[in-house]
């Protein structure tokens, strides 16, 4: 029996993460995701003024800074009992939507699709067409995506002054409300993005695409007229040819916090979302209403000062305790919902949100690397639809407030309180939990989507979602990590993803370029 150990080093530029695989007779039998960098954002925040979280936490990430800002401001509003006026939520949703469009499109067409240009696929059907569309810096769709995503984040800049790393959401609202010029500018960006999506990606009307009721309607769509020649159909054919709809399942438990907060409800203090969230328990086959009290983080296999079991983020700690020679192996903690290992992301968001077409595909084929990527592209259409509805609602409510100052005389210090903020970021469920005491942050915990997905083992020894998604993978040629690359990419890793493979005496490198 040939047993080799592969180290997939995903960290070339930022130094974030590697994956260790044990391979027996060409099949992955064990996987470990290793967060190689201590983040420490939570420790930085302790003792600081509570509002510093609005400036510091967006710096967690250069791609999804708006989602961190949104989670941070919701956490502070919860702690202080503030309810943002409806226009504030509309602006927040619009900007989060624009950032999500940027992320989903770039990931799909600058990073996932170019993997299909790998030289090993040269003899596959439609390879020449794949190159013409997706080859880095050359392909038509690749270059159109660069241009389209450069434009779409202008929407965030209209309200936030800049993107990324803006801090325009403040407890009680946003710093800049809608006016006619901004609405028209944002509408122009959304219209351009929709036109491009319909012509180049879908090959048909976006609303008709969103209305597809089931798997057979999906397959029929991809075979008709313009859609059959568009990028989505090409990706679907190529991905299925590689059997990507049969690999990379991972955890069957799904988590979504719900997408697009309802502006009028938020103004009343009710945190309702337009697209519902929840927890899909794969063991019982039922959806449960979301209970953030069930979220807890384990450190049994992480390099933090040990505690027993899992802790809710309000009780959490992030005290580093590096022990490279123990069975601990990651700087990532292991978040769990109850005791369940979950996956989160566009697939979880849309399945729990009620997308009939994806639900039908999920029932017929199960979860997979391709279904995760397909869900990411489908969410682009939802993002455009939701963003447009935010603009239309703002147009009906121009002149209404976008900020409501806390009542009473200005206090010397911010009041004490505990709060949480949950949003669906590009990569899935993102939560911030804060405790404010004597005007400063006593505790702050951030649970990112990639922490859920790329978690190490927990106190019970249960492997994380990514770790599970690689088990059983048959490596056609053990020196070629392209297939592992497809699965990792389907998770939209919040990491730099250059893959190294270690075997007995050689070191190979995987990269689409």
């Amino acid at each position, binding site marked *: 029996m040939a047993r080799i150990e592969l180290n997939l080093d995903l960290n*070339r*530029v930022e130094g974030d993460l590697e994956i260790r695989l044990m391979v027996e007779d060409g099949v992955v039998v064990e996987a470990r995701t290793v967060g190689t960098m201590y983040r420490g954002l939570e420790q930085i925040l302790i003792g600081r003024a509570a509002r510093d979280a609005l400036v510091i936490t967006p710096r967690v990430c250069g791609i999804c800074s708006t989602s961190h800002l949104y989670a941070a401001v919701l956490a502070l509003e919860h702690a202080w009992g503030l309810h943002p006026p409806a226009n504030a939520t509309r602006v927040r949703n619009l900007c989060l939507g624009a950032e999500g469009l940027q*992320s989903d499109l*770039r990931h799909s067409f600058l990073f996932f699709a170019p993997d299909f240009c790998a030289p090993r696929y040269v003899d596959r059907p439609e390879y020449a067409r794949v190159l013409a569309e997706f080859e880095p810096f050359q392909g038509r769709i690749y270059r159109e995506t660069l241009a389209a995503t450069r434009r779409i*984040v202008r929407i965030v800049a209209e309200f936030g*002054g800049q993107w990324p*790393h803006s801090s325009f959401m403040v407890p009680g609202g946003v710093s800049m409300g809608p006016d006619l010029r901004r609405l028209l500018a944002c509408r122009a960006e959304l219209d351009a993005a929709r036109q491009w999506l319909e012509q180049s990606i879908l090959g048909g009307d976006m609303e008709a695409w969103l209305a597809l009721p089931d798997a057979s309607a999906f397959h029929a769509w991809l075979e008709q007229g313009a859609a059959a020649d568009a990028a989505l159909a090409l990706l679907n054919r190529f991905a299925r040819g590689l059997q990507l709809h049969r690999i990379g399942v991972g955890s069957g438990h799904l988590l979504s916090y719900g997408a697009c907060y309802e502006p009028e409800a938020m103004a009343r203090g009710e945190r309702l979302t337009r697209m519902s969230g929840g927890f899909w328990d794969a063991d019982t086959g039922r959806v449960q209403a979301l209970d953030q009290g069930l979220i807890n983080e384990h450190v049994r296999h992480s390099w933090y000062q040990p505690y027993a079991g899992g802790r809710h983020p309000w009780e959490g700690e992030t005290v580093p305790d590096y022990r490279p020679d123990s069975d601990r192996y990651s700087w990532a903690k292991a978040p769990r919902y109850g005791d369940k290992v979950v996956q989160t992301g566009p697939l979880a968001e849309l399945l729990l949100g009620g997308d009939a077409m994806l639900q039908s595909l999920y029932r017929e084929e199960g979860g997979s690397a391709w279904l995760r990527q397909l869900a990411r592209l489908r969410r682009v259409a939802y993002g455009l639809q939701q963003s447009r509805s935010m603009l239309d609602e703002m147009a009906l409510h121009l002149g209404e407030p976008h900020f409501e100052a806390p009542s009473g005389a200005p206090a010397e210090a911010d009041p004490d309180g505990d709060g949480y903020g949950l949003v669906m970021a590009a990569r899935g469920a993102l939560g911030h939990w804060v405790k404010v005491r004597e005007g400063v942050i006593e505790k702050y915990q951030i649970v990112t989507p990639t922490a859920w997905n790329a978690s190490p083992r927990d106190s019970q020894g249960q492997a994380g979602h990514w770790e599970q998604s690689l088990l059983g993978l048959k490596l056609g040629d053990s020196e070629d990590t392209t297939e592992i690359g497809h699965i990792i990419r389907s998770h939209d890793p919040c*990491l730099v993803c250059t893959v190294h493979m270690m075997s007995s005496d050689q070191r190979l490198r995987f990269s689409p*370029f």
Partner: protein
Amino acid sequence: MLLAQHPPLKRHILCLGNALHGDDGLGPALARALAASPRALPADVSVFEVGTRGLDALALLEGCSRALLVDASQARGQAGRIWQGSAAQLLSQWQVVLGETATAHGAGLGFLLRAAASLGEGPDM
């Protein structure tokens, strides 16, 4: 960084780097020095502190006819040496570094230059 409502600018100075990361702070330091003495610059020149997010600066290469990019580099030899050249020269000499970006999180300066070149528009750099 992308600024809203910028007027039609003619020349942009883009300063890249991490101010908290030793010598990589050269770009931000220059940006702050220029911002502190705005009268030292002609009226048509704007300075941007880009940080470490390369691809996001693509928007700053719009609306200008010339762009000057300032960054610290390990690949350019002896510490303290200043190298000046065109973006095209950099692209042709720097293939190894450019090949290392494969996710949106890793899309740095090399990615930015290739992206700008592939779009076939933009300023002299």
